[in-house]
């Protein structure tokens, strides 16, 4: 009979339930880095004071290992002298009553245990609990105990953090009389408190509840863009390399970790700290893309430098860095507003300062990279207006399923690229009267968006979640759909990808786009067929997928 913990059982002790081992150094570093950020949890936090109290009430890990052992004793059954341990077959409810020992057996065993210096602490029908000193246990059972440490458990979530147990191969020679009276005796392992599925996860992978219609990732975003059928048919973006250029990507957030995405973050020149996203725009928006194409090789190109914001990377530097990683799709939710404000008069030629960026984007598309840019939110956005990129506009879907052009998203005819109408087609974007607070997204806690958006989105400041959208969300959604198409056929050119999405988008016939983007004033209207507000309409991922 195995006396000492076998490898499997010791692994069970050493690799506890939570704390999935992170494969990436950036994620491990991210946990440490995120924990180093000052945490000021709101009193509205769902984890709340009560959980904290519960944690505090448990034994702190700094307590020295106890010399008093807690032992479970089983006794032999009348019929054949075998007990639950030595029987070596699985106990069942039907068999249990056969193992109830005779009273005389119980009395004799307990008497002997007390005589040998153990204290009886509990009696069951089949088992008994006793306690005794480590030294006495070693003496009575003829063994040698070693110290075991409980690993991978957050503080306060295991009864103790160290305990004694015989090592594999340790001697086992119980005192003869005791051996004849009992079935077996085992030191009990420390138990784990199960009331926090995600202990010390700050923030929670589960988004908070807010009391207005909004969408959640991944489910609602996928549902409305008709993605679930693709996932069921085996499409998830496997093998497709997608780069996203943004503020940063704090993918150490419990949501991303729990989803198990394959992501990495690289630093564009001037950017720092790959695990942080002080603004959190990139972190949140990346959840849109990963919801749709969860198995892409995601390369986050971080632009921001939180310590020295003026030293962060330019969009061009970010794009150059992205291209170094051979992406098939690039998603960018940044831009330049090429209009005189406050008049709103559109510029009629591309500023010299942006010619280099234009050239780099053109070269990328010529090399077969699908480039997706946000159309803007009332902005006359460049590079979203470039003819060869996919320009992502916005459609709002009400909880009753009704669709309309988002009045938050831009739509305009470019004066710089004659004949170019923005957008090409659309992703999911909220409405202006609600700050476009539409999609619940995971963000770095205490980030600018976490704090700033909480003033109106119903989440708590510092809880690591925010409700927001805009064409910044639409662009990564469309990029995710592009990745699914490229998984199905890696040979698709950017033109072909765009055409597939154009041909299969769902017509949106009502609503108006953001008036601030239209040089004539007044938001461009949606209508039957292709229209100024939504282009070809709301992307239908599965319809495009079937056409590949």
């Amino acid at each position, binding site marked *: 009979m195995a006396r000492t913990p076998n490898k499997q059982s010791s692994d069970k002790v050493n690799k506890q339930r939570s704390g999935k081992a992170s494969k990436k150094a950036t994620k491990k570093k991210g946990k440490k880095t995120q924990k180093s950020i000052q945490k000021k949890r709101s009193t509205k936090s769902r984890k709340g004071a009560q959980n904290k109290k519960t944690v505090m009430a448990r034994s702190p890990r700094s307590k020295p290992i106890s010399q008093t052992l807690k032992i479970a004793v089983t006794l032999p059954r009348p019929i054949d002298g075998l007990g639950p341990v030595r029987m070596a077959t699985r106990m069942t409810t039907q068999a249990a009553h056969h193992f109830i020992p005779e009273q005389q057996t119980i009395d004799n065993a307990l008497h002997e245990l007390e005589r040998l210096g153990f204290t009886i602490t509990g009696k069951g029908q089949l088992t008994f609990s006793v306690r005794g000193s480590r030294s006495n246990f070693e003496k009575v059972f003829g063994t040698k105990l070693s110290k075991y440490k409980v690993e991978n458990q957050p503080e306060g979530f295991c009864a103790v953090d160290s305990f004694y147990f015989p090592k594999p191969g340790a001697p086992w020679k119980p005192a003869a009389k005791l051996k004849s009276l009992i079935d077996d005796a085992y030191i009990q392992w420390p138990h784990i408190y199960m009331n926090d599925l995600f202990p010390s996860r700050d923030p929670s992978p589960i988004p908070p509840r807010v009391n207005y219609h909004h969408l959640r990732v991944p489910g609602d975003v996928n549902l409305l863009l008709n993605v679930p059928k693709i996932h069921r048919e085996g499409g998830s973006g496997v093998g497709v390399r997608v780069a996203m250029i943004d503020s940063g990507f704090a993918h150490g957030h419990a949501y991303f970790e729990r989803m198990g995405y394959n992501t990495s973050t690289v630093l*564009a020149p001037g950017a720092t700290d790959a695990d942080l996203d002080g603004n959190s725009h990139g972190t949140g928006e990346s959840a849109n893309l990963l919801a749709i194409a969860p198995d892409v090789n995601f390369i986050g190109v971080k*632009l921001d430098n939180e310590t020295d*914001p003026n030293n962060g990377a330019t969009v061009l530097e970010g794009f150059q860095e992205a291209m170094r990683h051979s992406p098939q799709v690039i998603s960018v939710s940044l831009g330049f*507003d090429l209009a005189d404000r406050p008049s709103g008069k559109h510029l009629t030629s591309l500023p010299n*300062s942006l010619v*280099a960026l234009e050239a780099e984007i053109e070269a990328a598309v010529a090399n077969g990279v699908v480039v997706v840019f*946000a159309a803007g939110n009332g902005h006359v956005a460049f590079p979203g207006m470039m003819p060869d990129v996919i320009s992502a506009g916005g459609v709002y879907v009400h909880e009753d399923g009704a669709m309309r052009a988002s009045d938050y998203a831009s739509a305009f005819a470019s004066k710089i690229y004659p004949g170019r109408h923005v957008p090409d087609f659309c992703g999911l974007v909220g409405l202006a009267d609600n700050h476009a607070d539409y999609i619940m997204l995971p963000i770095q806690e205490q980030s600018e968006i976490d704090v700033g958006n909480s003033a109106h989105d119903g989440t708590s400041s510092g809880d690591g979640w925010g409700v*927001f959208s*805009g064409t*910044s969300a639409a662009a990564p959604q469309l990029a995710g759909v592009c990745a699914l198409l490229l998984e199905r056929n890696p040979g698709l050119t950017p033109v072909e990808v765009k055409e597939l999405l154009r041909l299969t988008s769902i017509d949106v016939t009502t609503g108006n786009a953001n008036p601030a983007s239209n040089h004539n004033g007044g938001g461009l209207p949606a209508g039957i067929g292709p229209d100024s507000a939504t282009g070809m309409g709301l992307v239908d991922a599965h319809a495009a997928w079937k056409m590949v």
Partner: protein
Amino acid sequence: MLKKKFRNPEGIEKVKSACESLGLTATASGLATLSVRTEAEYFEKIFGVVLERKTRKEISNRDFGESGGFIADESILIPESLKKYVDNISVEPPVTRLR
């Protein structure tokens, strides 16, 4: 923005070298462009431009703010030592982080 002839690894290395001779530090390159950095005052001096400094813009209703940076006079003259290699030199303006 590189001239077409220098849009290849060898060409980029030549342009980098020429930039570095001018005191410009190359930071990244793409298929058609090279990014460099230098101090604002030095840039104004060697390119004969006046830079307008733009401070960061905070989060607004329309977007999540604008990065700080500089705006340059449109007519940045290409120095003689770079004329052979580049078609255009520009300073990227501050970018808007769209919602």
